[in-house]
């Protein structure tokens, strides 16, 4: 039977050719830079696991847990994530060493979630020179949103400035005649906050009638609070770190002074600020949030919080679920996974940046309802919305709409 055989052979060859052609096409679509392959994506990370800021080590652990779960579920588009996380003990020279190790020795595709303003500033120039993405840095400074100068660096957290612009919006709308006094920590964080507030109140800057700054080394800030009271404002805003936030709220309460009190999100922890300040002094204090507070009973049964709890139970049983750092790491890693999914088979560094810069109203289970991530070629600031909240009883209660802290106009 020569004929059928030949025909069959021809069919076989033809189908082989078709397979080869499609395989070739598929191969052509797969593009990789250093650190990515058919089986693996290497991600570098630097977090202080030791040293003065080692409490933030939980951020790195939560990120690792998210990636571990993704791997156990089959990876991203069939590729496993190799999450390499190093310790810099919050020291900028060590951060430079670790960043170079990750990029030159471990050959990672990108850096993700590197923590600390000083550490990130130290590596930013080097990383951009190497054209390696420095994605979703874990710091609230405003300077990470600068795609023109640093096209490879992107923030994640709502910046201090956008947060304080939200307070300005609230005060303009709800308390248009109130006089404002500000207490801020004399460092980049406090100054960032103050700048945002002034930008937000640019229409009537004279409303800020008193500003006091304190040094982080001061044992107590009572005298600053007393001085602010003497200018007789209606609103006092505390751009402080937790210890000083608690001191200030307590002092305001002790003086029987009842201004509208706003405290920055940094110092909005129930456990470390509101309780130490005294629950009776904390009533009515306002702040803003973007992530769900796991200890808030209103989220019991919420699918986003359930997913978070399942992850902790399975991969991180030793971490306290109420630790806000765990939620931060979880949320950031969730965004990272989404960006890598969107990259498909084009795992080049430029495509990673492109996908990271084209998030459109992306919602996550760990964020408050209505708060979404949006980025663009000129907008490297994923989270820009917050919701106001007020302390009532023993917990924060959200109120009002989600407000965007984006700069409008200029």
């Amino acid at each position, binding site marked *: 039977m020569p004929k059928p055989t030949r025909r069959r052979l021809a069919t076989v060859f033809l189908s082989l050719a078709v397979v080869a052609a499609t395989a070739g096409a598929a191969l052509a679509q797969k593009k990789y830079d250093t650190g990515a392959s058919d089986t693996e994506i290497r991600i570098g990370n630097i977090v202080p696991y030791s040293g003065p800021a080692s409490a933030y080590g939980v951020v790195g652990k939560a990120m690792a847990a998210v990636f571990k779960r993704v791997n156990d579920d089959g990876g991203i588009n069939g590729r496993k994530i190799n999450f390499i996380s190093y310790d810099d003990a919050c020291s900028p020279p060590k951060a430079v060493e670790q960043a170079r190790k990750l990029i030159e020795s471990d050959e990672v595709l990108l850096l993700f979630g590197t923590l600390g303003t000083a550490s990130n500033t130290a590596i930013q120039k080097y990383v951009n020179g190497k054209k390696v993405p420095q994605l979703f840095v874990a710091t609230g400074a405003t300077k990470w949103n600068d795609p023109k100068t640093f096209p490879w660096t992107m923030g994640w957290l709502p910046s201090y400035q956008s947060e304080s612009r939200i307070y300005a919006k609230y005060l303009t709308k709800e308390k248009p005649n109130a006089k404002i006094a500000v207490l801020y920590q004399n460092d*980049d964080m406090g100054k960032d906050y103050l700048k945002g507030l002034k930008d937000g109140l640019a229409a009537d800057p004279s409303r800020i009638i008193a500003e006091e700054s304190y040094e982080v080394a001061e044992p107590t800030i009572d005298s600053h609070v007393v001085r602010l009271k003497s200018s007789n404002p209606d609103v006092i805003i505390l751009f402080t770190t937790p210890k000083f936030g608690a001191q200030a709220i307590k002092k305001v309460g002790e003086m029987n002074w009842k201004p509208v009190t706003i405290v920055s999100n940094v110092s909005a922890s129930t456990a470390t600020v509101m309780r130490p300040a005294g629950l009776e002094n904390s009533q009515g204090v306002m702040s803003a949030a973007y992530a769900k507070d796991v200890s808030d009973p209103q989220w019991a049964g919420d699918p986003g919080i359930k997913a978070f709890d399942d992850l902790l139970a399975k991969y991180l049983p030793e971490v306290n679920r109420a630790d806000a750092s765990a939620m931060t790491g979880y949320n950031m890693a969730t965004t990272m996974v989404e960006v890598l999914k969107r990259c498909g088979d084009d795992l080049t560094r430029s495509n990673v940046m492109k996908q990271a810069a084209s998030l459109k109203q992306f919602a996550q289970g760990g964020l408050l309802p209505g708060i979404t991530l949006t980025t663009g070629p000129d907008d490297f600031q994923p989270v820009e919305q917050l919701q106001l909240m007020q302390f009532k009883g023993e917990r924060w209660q959200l109120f009002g709409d989600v407000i965007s802290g984006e700069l409008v106009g200029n």
Partner: protein
Amino acid sequence: MSAVEDVVTEAPAVEAVPKRAMTLGFGTSLVMLALLLLVPLFVKNFIIFQLTMLLIYGLAVLALNILTGGSGQFSLGQSAFYAVGAYTSAILMEHADMNYALTLPIAGIICFAFGFLFGQPALRLSGVYLALATFALATAMPQLLKLGFFEHWTGGVQGLVVTKPDAPFGLPMSQDMWLYYFTLAITVGIYVASVNLLRSRSGRAFMAIRDNEIAASAMGVDVALYKTLAFGVSAGITGVAGGLGAIAVQFVAPDGYTITLAISLFLGMVVGGVGWLPGSIVGSAFIIFVPNIAEGISKGLSGAVFGVLLFLVIFLVPHGARQVAMVAQQLIGKLKK
């Protein structure tokens, strides 16, 4: 009780090291130098960067070694001198557009003056009291760098980003390799100068003060002058190391120069062997690489692992690398027979 009596009753802070035991033999030194010259040709840029940091911290440990091993004075404040050197270089490079190489001698001179002046009041103190006074300096320095008054120059908490120099004359080498050889040249220069300093009249004066202050002054050594001089020299070298560190890391910020750095340098000196200058490089290797090894063993317990390793070193070889080198030398001597 007067200070003099104090000194008499107190056991010598540092064990007397004979002068010849402070350095390496000529042959061994050449082998070491050849190794340091050749290794970068065969390794990745990242390793070259680590080697550069090794030399820089080596310099800082050497400076402390001159102070403690040479003149017998303790310092936990070396991070302050390192910070002043780093900031001097960074500010001159970024605000005055000065060539990086020129900033180093200036950093050295400023730190020498700073150390010399600090040495004046410190004269009244000795032993643990001096260590505490310098400790205060190290604790204060990061705060001082954040002061609003200096902020225009220092960049405050944000720090300053420094531009890394390219290889000059169109030499075909990477920035890292050029910086390595540049650092190596300075390190070798300072090492040779330090060895000669300790062998000179001044060096003998340092050691006489270390071994017995009263006997030294009886023999006509100006104790006050030489003690402050030792502080000045040590601070000056640390300042040069700080300047080089700023150029290599390309960034200075107050957080980089905390008391942790001072303690690391002190640790490096003890591990390398107090008073044994070549040990500085071993001590520097210890403070750079052992934390990485500890992190590799256990991420959560890296601090504990580091502690255990350090304990083992101090327990097994209390005189550090010097002791290991002596034992090795004796073994080789036996083999030759």
